[in-house]
């Protein structure tokens, strides 16, 4: 068991997400930065789909009731055990009765805390991920509160000498104030006028303060849509379409005034034209960005998007091999 002394700003239980229910209105949820979350699980020897804690800006203070291994990845944060600083991106032993505390962060947004065995909340529809809008998964379908007690599953890892490994720099993420975010054009992109199509990838956009697990609003440039007779049932604004499905990572521009990138807890569909989709690898990067950081969207091919995804998979695999080699 782990007791939540302070919950932090918005700390939720997440795994890789919920599959198979998108068609009836359930977004996948899951870790916003899947790479960091996967690394944390690999470090402590958890299965890939083990549940972790995802923090937002201000992390929690937690008391551990049994010995175990932990790993913290993601944002750059000050972390302590009983007041003594510990390193992120490595394996740390924690003992019964010790208190883990997150201090301020200096880069990024979200930390991932994996605990050997994984968080043991009851899975809902095949996932432990919290989806707050429908009060589903995690701890009672909500963010952590003071006094919550989290069950930790039995540790399946047999090797005990994992605590020497520190992850090399090139396998960590380093959140920066500006990132190139790659997109695949498609969906209703043809409804943007040609100038706006160019503008989308030629100018930088700024992450606004309205950015959370549901969506990221980005400000910067007015986009305009081609003039057409609005389809029956679409609504009167040129950015309106007959309600359609929204991919995770898709960009839309209601009335052209600002961009919204839909994240893992987004609605599954709606009536705004979707313009392009952020590739899965870069959605992890966007998830660590905040106001007033900036992005430049870059169009890439499906082939390149799949290659980048495969490379992310290889990085994670090389990490498993590195750990196997030293332990």
């Amino acid at each position: 068991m782990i007791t939540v002394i302070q919950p932090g700003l918005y700390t939720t239980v997440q795994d890789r997400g919920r599959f198979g229910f998108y068609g009836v209105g359930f977004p996948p949820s899951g870790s916003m930065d899947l790479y960091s979350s996967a690394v944390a699980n690999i470090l402590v020897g958890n299965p890939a789909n083990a549940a972790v804690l995802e923090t937002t800006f201000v992390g929690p203070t937690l008391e551990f009731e049994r010995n175990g291994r932990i790993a913290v990845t993601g944002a750059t944060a000050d972390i302590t055990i009983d007041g003594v600083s510990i390193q992120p991106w490595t394996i740390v032993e924690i003992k019964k009765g010790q208190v883990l505390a997150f201090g301020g962060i200096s880069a990024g947004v979200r930390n991932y805390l994996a605990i050997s065995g994984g968080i043991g909340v009851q899975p809902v529809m095949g996932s432990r991920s919290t989806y707050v809008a429908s009060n589903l998964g995690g701890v009672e379908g909500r963010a952590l509160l003071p006094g919550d007690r989290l069950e930790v599953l039995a540790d399946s890892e047999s090797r005990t000498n994992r605590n020497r490994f520190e992850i090399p720099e090139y396998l960590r993420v380093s959140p920066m104030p500006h990132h190139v975010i790659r997109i695949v054009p498609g969906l209703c992109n043809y409804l943007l006028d040609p100038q706006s199509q160019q503008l989308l990838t030629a100018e930088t956009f700024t992450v606004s303060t309205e950015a959370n697990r549901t969506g990221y609003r980005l400000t910067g440039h007015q986009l305009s849509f081609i003039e057409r007779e609005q389809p029956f049932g679409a609504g009167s604004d040129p950015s309106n379409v007959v309600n359609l499905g929204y991919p995770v990572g898709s960009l839309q521009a209601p009335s052209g005034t600002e961009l919204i990138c839909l994240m893992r807890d987004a609605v599954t569909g709606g009536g705004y034209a979707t313009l392009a989709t952020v590739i899965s690898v870069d959605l992890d990067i966007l998830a660590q960005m905040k106001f007033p950081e900036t992005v430049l969207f870059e169009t890439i091919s499906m082939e390149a998007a799949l290659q980048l995804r495969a490379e992310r998979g290889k990085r994670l695999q090389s990490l498993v091999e590195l750990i196997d080699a030293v332990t």
Partner: protein
Amino acid sequence: MPEIHEIAAPFPGVFYRRAAPGSAPLAEPEQVIAVGHVIALVEVMKMFHEVQSAVAGRITEFCAEDGDAVAMGQIIAKIESQS
């Protein structure tokens, strides 16, 4: 020797000195406070974070106005402690 401690905004958001509109400020300049005293709130996406003082001492100034947008790391208050 008195020492000045700066308190920074933990994330980008809106700075509030009151727990609710119309209520008294959580802390006033010149007030002497204990460790853990909540001096202000920072809000983002309707999530409120209590900004606590990590030291005991006297609040010398607030560096942001009630309702201001603040950046992460921006200094929002200064506290003079005796060490």
